[in-house]
Each structure stands twice: as structure tokens, then as C-alpha cells.
């Protein structure tokens, strides 16, 4: 009888472990597009009953690094590694999606735009600056702060005011 009770308990525990939650958050604060800065603000949560399975599309063969085809954990880790080892990614085409962050330099008035992503715990964010292809886009075509965007560009580094920064050059906005 004791073993039967244990087996019933096992079944109940297994059933209980089948329920999991998944939460998502949207980040809408301003970020510095030229350097990686962390922001944290959670707006919404969407709880689902089943074990979370991210619907991740297949990788785009036209780019070297398709971050849209990765899980959120991998995206954050990959962007972190791009920040730490920029020379290994220089010249590679990158595609990523996230929230548009904007920053205006108070001294020069220059606008910077970035695609911002969050880590799995939603407490940290990273952004990668992008500059749209001047042949195809004008200043008005840049997205607004907080817009969900998908952007593709060539990863590069540049120096400005004595600092080294990372960006995606000749970028294109991809319609979702």
C-alpha cells in the first residue's frame, strides 16, 4: 500500500511539473546608442500554462549572423560576446530584432539609434547601434523610440571623441 501511495504521489508531482510559466517584458526607456548601457523596466507579463517553447524562425542565409533565429538567452550572450570581442565580428552582416532606443548627444546634437535586447531575467539590456544606408533611407525613415524593429547591417567599429564604439553600418530596416 505504501508503494502505491508513492506511485500516486509521483503521478501527481509529474502532473504538477508539467505546468510552467513564461513571462515577457517590454522595455521602453532611452538608451545610449553608442555605448552599451543597461536599463531595466518591466511593463507587461504574459503567462502561458505550458512549458515555454520559443517559436524561433530558421536562420536567414543572406546574413552571417542572424540573431532573430536564436533564443533570447543566446541573443544576449552573442551580443555580449560581440561587445567583448568586436574584432572577431568586424565585417560580418548581422540581423537582429528588438526595441529601438535613441540618444541625442547634448553637445553635438547628433542622434544615435540602437536596437535593444534584454536578457532572460529581464533585468539587463544591451543595444547595438545601427546607421541606416544613406542611399536608401533619409533621416525621417529612422524609427521612433520604443518601436519594435528588425534591422540588418554590417558590424563595424569606429572611433569618436577618443572612444571606440560598435555599430551596424549600411543597415536596412526589415518590415515585420
Amino acid at each position, binding site marked *: 500500500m505504501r508503494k502505491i501511495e508513492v506511485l500516486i504521489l509521483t503521478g501527481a508531482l509529474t502532473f504538477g511539473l508539467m505546468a510552467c510559466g513564461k513571462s515577457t517584458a517590454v522595455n521602453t526607456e532611452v538608451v545610449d546608442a553608442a555605448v552599451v548601457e*543597461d536599463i*531595466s523596466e518591466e511593463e507587461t507579463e504574459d503567462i502561458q500554462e505550458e512549458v515555454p517553447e520559443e517559436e524561433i524562425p530558421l536562420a536567414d542565409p543572406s546574413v552571417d549572423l542572424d540573431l532573430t533565429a536564436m533564443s533570447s538567452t543566446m541573443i544576449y550572450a552573442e551580443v555580449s560576446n560581440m561587445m567583448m570581442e568586436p574584432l572577431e565580428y568586424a565585417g560580418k552582416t548581422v540581423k537582429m530584432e528588438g526595441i529601438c532606443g535613441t540618444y541625442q548627444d547634448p553637445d553635438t546634437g547628433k542622434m544615435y539609434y540602437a536596437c535593444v535586447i534584454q536578457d532572460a531575467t529581464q533585468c539587463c*539590456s544591451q543595444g547595438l547601434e545601427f546607421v541606416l544606408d544613406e542611399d536608401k533611407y533619409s533621416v525621417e525613415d529612422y524609427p521612433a523610440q520604443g518601436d519594435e524593429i528588425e534591422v540588418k547591417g554590417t558590424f563595424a567599429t569606429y572611433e569618436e571623441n577618443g572612444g571606440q564604439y560598435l555599430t551596424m553600418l549600411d543597415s536596412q530596416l526589415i518590415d515585420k
Partner: protein
Amino acid sequence: MEKLIMYLGFPFVRYALIVGVLIALCSSLLGVTLVLKRYSYIGDGLSHVAFGALAIATVLNLTNKMIIILPLTILAAILLLKNGNNSKVKGDAAIAMISVGALAFGYLLMNVFPSSANVSGDVCSTLFGSTSILTLTKEEVIICGILSVCVLVVFVLFYNRIFAVTFDENFANAVGTKVNFYNLLIATITAVIIVLAMNLVGSLLISALVIFPALSAMSVIKSFRGVTIFSAASSVICAFIGIIISILGGTPVGSTIVAVDVVMFLICFVIGKVKG
């Protein structure tokens, strides 16, 4: 499966798996000793000390923070474990004292002397280890690898002595074993593993990495050697599965590994009860 194969093509994923498995292996081996010596919560205490040391290193703007973190954590471990069962301030009170003090001072320092725009985010990331294991530099991987191998070698070489000191310090002392030395050794190894494990599961979840594999093993195995081997195997498997699930599912690495450890414990607990 194709997605997993693609992810395994990234060097930082391979580094994470290698280092994660090594850390899980080392922590499980020490976990058996710590659980039996009633020092289960020392992982938490030392991880908070490491957090405090990390805060000091961050304030000092050190490139290699291990210079501060490792010695301070080892010092704390020695203070807590060196005297074994004969210390004036007993294990749980000593751990609590050092743990909360270090955590409070660490967070205070990081707020008074912030090194980044988002202190809370940095603290959260350190405490829960969401992607730390996936952002290791090559140098950090090499250091982790060397330290893990050293811990394994020490454990294998001194297995019998560690076994004796774990079960009965007074008897071990009576037969000539240098109990204080081996307590010191256990303390040092524990500190090293805690510092390494912070990269894997974060400061708050380290205790799980130490406790759950040992408890899972004790639920089904009765001999010390069997418990040690089972603990090591289950810890490695759970860490591997946890990392894979987190990169595929987009979940925080640390908590995913701990969740898998919990499931393993429940399975072993049930098996142990059924076996009788």
C-alpha cells in the same frame, strides 16, 4: 536538433558547456562532504562573501577581479570551516553572520560607488547568473578549467582523508590524521568552487548546486563512494541538460540548472522511497 547543432557551433556555447560541467562536477564532490558535515548553507554564505569581494573589486576598477574575490572568499571559508566542529561560533550562526554582512556591504559599496548606469541590473545578473556562463572570455575559461582540474585532483588524491574527517573528526584526530589541515583544505577548495560556480548559477543559487546532487544521491545510494559517484554524475547531467534547455528555450541559465537539479532530486527521492 538542428538548432542545437547550430548553437554548438558558437565557441562561447562550447566553453559554457565545458566550464559548466566542470563546475558542476567539482561542486557535487564537495557537496557530499559539506552536507554530511552539516555545512549545507555554506555555499550561500561564501557566495555572498564573494559578492562583497566582487563589489570591492568593481569599486577599485580592477580588470581581473579574481585577485580580490578568490583570496577574500578563501579567507572567509577558512574562518568558517578551519576549526570544524569545535569553533566558538557554531556553523549556522557564523555563516549567517558573514553572509549577510558581506552581502549588505557589497550592495552598499556598489550603490555608493556605482561603476555602471544600472547597478540593480548588474547586481541581479551576479545574483542569478542569467547569462554569465555564456559570456566567459578565453582567459576566464582557462582559469576555470585549471582551477576545476586542481580541485578534482586534490579530491581524488585526498579522498580517504576527506572521508575520515567528514564522518568523525575526533576519531580521525585520534588516529593521527591532521584534521585541521584537511579542514583547511576543504575550506580552500570550497571557496574556489563557490567563486567558479558564481559564473554558472549566480550567488543566490549556488547552494542548490552543492546540496541537490548530494541529497539526490543519498536518497538512492547508501555508501559514501556510491553517493560521491552518483552525485557527480547527476550534477554533470543536470548542468548539461540545464544549459541546453536554457539556450534552446531562452530561459536564465542558473535557475534552469537548479530547476533540473530539483527534478532530479524529486525523482531520486521517489525511487528511494519505492526501494524502501
